C-alpha cells in the first residue's frame, strides 16, 4: 500500500508539471486554432535561457529564472505569435501545423548546436530533503513542485473566471466572431493567450529540469505527453488539461510498476486512442458542434 501511495504522490508531482504544458497547449488551440506541435520544445527552451543567463551573463540563479521567464514571453509568446503564427494562419491550418513541427525541430537543433548536445544539471529551488509520512517518502522538492504548479493553475483559473480580461479571453475562445461583435478586442486576447502559454511553459521548464536534467531532446517526450494530456482531459476546458496531466503522470508510474516497464509509454497512448475514438471531447470536455 505504501508503494502505491508513493507511486501516486510521485505521479501527481510530475503530472502537475505535465498539466502546465497541457493547459498552454489547450488555450492556444481553443483561442487561435493553433496546434502547437512545438509545445514540448517550448518547455525545453526556457531552462536553457536560464542556463545562458547564469553561465554567459553571470547572473545569480533566481535572477536568471526571472530573465528566462521574460525572455520566454518575448520569444515563445510575442515572436511566436507575430513571426510564425500570424503570417501562416491565413494559409490554413495545415501549413501552420507543418510550421510548428518545423519550429520544434528548429528549437531542438538550435539548442543542440549552439549550446550543447549533452545533458546539463539544473539547480533546484528547493532542497531534496526527505520527509516520511506513513511509510511514504516525499522530498521537499516534490512537494514544492506540487504547491507551485497548483498555485499557478489556481491563479490562472481565478484570472480566467474572475477578471474581466479573463472572461473576455474565454469569450474569444468559445466564439471569436460573436465576441468581436460584442466589442471584445480579440487580437489582444489572442496575444494574451500566447503570453500565458509562454509563462506556463517556462514554469514547467523550471520545475522539471532539475529532475529531467536540461537536454535538447526533452521536448520529444514532454510534447507527446502534453498532447495526450490535453486531448484526454478534454479540449474545450482548461480543467480538462489539468485532469489530463495529473492522470497521465499517475498512470505512467502505475503502468511502469504494475504492467511492464518496456511498454510503459503505450498506456497513455492507448488511452489517447480510446478517448479520440469513443469520446473525442475528452473526459471533461463538452461535445462540440461540427462547423459547416
Amino acid at each position: 500500500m505504501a508503494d502505491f501511495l508513493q507511486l501516486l504522490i510521485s505521479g501527481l508531482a510530475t503530472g502537475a508539471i505535465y498539466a502546465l504544458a497541457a493547459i498552454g497547449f489547450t488555450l492556444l488551440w481553443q483561442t487561435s486554432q493553433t496546434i502547437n506541435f512545438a509545445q514540448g520544445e517550448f518547455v525545453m527552451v526556457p531552462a536553457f535561457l536560464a542556463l545562458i543567463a547564469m553561465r554567459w551573463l553571470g547572473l545569480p540563479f533566481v535572477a536568471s529564472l526571472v530573465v528566462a521567464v521574460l525572455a520566454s514571453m518575448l520569444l515563445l509568446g510575442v515572436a511566436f505569435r507575430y513571426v510564425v503564427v500570424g503570417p501562416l494562419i491565413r494559409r490554413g491550418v495545415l501549413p501552420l501545423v507543418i510550421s510548428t513541427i518545423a519550429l520544434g525541430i528548429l528549437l531542438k537543433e538550435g539548442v543542440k548546436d549552439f549550446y550543447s548536445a549533452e545533458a546539463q544539471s539544473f539547480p533546484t529551488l528547493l532542497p531534496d530533503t526527505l520527509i516520511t509520512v506513513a511509510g511514504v517518502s516525499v522530498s521537499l522538492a516534490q512537494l514544492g513542485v506540487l504547491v507551485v504548479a497548483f498555485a499557478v493553475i489556481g491563479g490562472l483559473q481565478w484570472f480566467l473566471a474572475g477578471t474581466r480580461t479573463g472572461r473576455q479571453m474565454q469569450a474569444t475562445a468559445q466564439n471569436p466572431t460573436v465576441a468581436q461583435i460584442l466589442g471584445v478586442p480579440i487580437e489582444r486576447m489572442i496575444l494574451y493567450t500566447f503570453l500565458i502559454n509562454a509563462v506556463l511553459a517556462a514554469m514547467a521548464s523550471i520545475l522539471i529540469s532539475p529532475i529531467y536534467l536540461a537536454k535538447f531532446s526533452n521536448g520529444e517526450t514532454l510534447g507527446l505527453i502534453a498532447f495526450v494530456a490535453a486531448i484526454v482531459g478534454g479540449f474545450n476546458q482548461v480543467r480538462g488539461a489539468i485532469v489530463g496531466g495529473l492522470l497521465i503522470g499517475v498512470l505512467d508510474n502505475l503502468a511502469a510498476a504494475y504492467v511492464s516497464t518496456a511498454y510503459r509509454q503505450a498506456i497513455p497512448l492507448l488511452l489517447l486512442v480510446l478517448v479520440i475514438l469513443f469520446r473525442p471531447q475528452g473526459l471533461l470536455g463538452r461535445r462540440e458542434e461540427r462547423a459547416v
Partner: protein
Amino acid sequence: MSAGRSLLVGLALVAVLALVPVDLTDIGLPYPGLRRYGTYILTLWLVTAIAAMGVNLIVGYAGQETLAQAAFVGIGAYLTAIVTKAGVPFGVAFAASALVTFVVGVLLGFPALRVQKHYLAFVTLAFTVLCWLVFRNEQWLTGGVMGIRDIERPSFLGWPLRNHVRFYWFVLGITSILTFVLWWILRSPWGRAFTALRENPLRAESLGIDVRLYTLVAFALGCAYGGMAGSLYAPLVEFIDPSPFALGPSLLFMLMVVIGGSGTFLGPFVGAGIAVLLPEWLRAWETWYLLIYAVLVMVMMAFFPGGIVGLLSRLLARRGTATGGRP
C-alpha cells in the same frame, strides 16, 4: 500536358536515371559515374520517394493528415526481413508487405477517419509510437534493439542483385511501375473524385461521392506505398533496427511532402530528394542540416505553401506569359 507526352517524358527520365551511376568512360563519354556511396544515396532517394508518394496521396490528394508513414515503412521492412531470412522469395515478401500494410491501413483508417481532421494526426502519431514499441520490445520477432542483420539482396529471375548498380536498377524499375500506377489512378475518375474530396468534402458528398469510402481507400493505398518502400529499404540497407521507424522520421515524411509540393505529382520526388541529398550538400556543416531544413520549411510555408514544385510552376508560368504564352 497530354497523357502521351507525359508518358514519353516519364520514360526519358527513367532512361536518364538509369545511366546516372554508370561509368560511361568505357564507351567514350567523359562521365565517371558514381561510386558505391553515391549509388546508395540515389537508391535511398527512390525508396524514400515511394513512401513520400504515399503520404502525398493521403495529405495532398485526399486532404487528410498522417503521421504514421514511418510505422508502415517499418512494418514492410520487418516483414520482408523476417520472411526473406526464412527463405521466402523476395517477390512474395514484397507482395505480402504491400497487402499487409494495405489491410492495416484499412483497419487503422476505418475508425480513425471518422474523427475530425486534426485528431487523425494524433491517432496516427499514437499508432507510430505503439508500432515502434513493438519493434523494439519483441526481441524474439524483430531482434529488438539489436535489429536484424545481414539481410540478403534478392535475385531477379536468377540474376543476382548484390551489386549496387544492379540493385539500383531493380529499385528504379519498381519505383517507375509504382509511379505509373499512381499516375494512372490520379488521371482516372477515382483521381478526380480525390481532388473533389480535397477541395470541398461537403459538396463532394452532396454530389453522391461516398466520401468515407474514397478517403479510406486513399489512406490505405498511401500506407501500402509506405509498406512497399519499407520492403525495398530492408535489402538496401542490409540491416534494420527500430530507429528509422520512430516518430521523428514520420514527422520528416510530412515535412518532405509539403516542401516538395503537397498535391503535386513531382512534389514527393523533390521532397525526398531534399531530405536525402541536403545532408550530403551540407556536409561541411554536417550537424546543422536539420536546423537549416527546419528554417527552409518555415520560410516555404509562409511564402510558398505550394512547395518547391509550386514555386517553380509559378516562376516558369510567369516567364511563359511574359514571352507571349507557350505550353
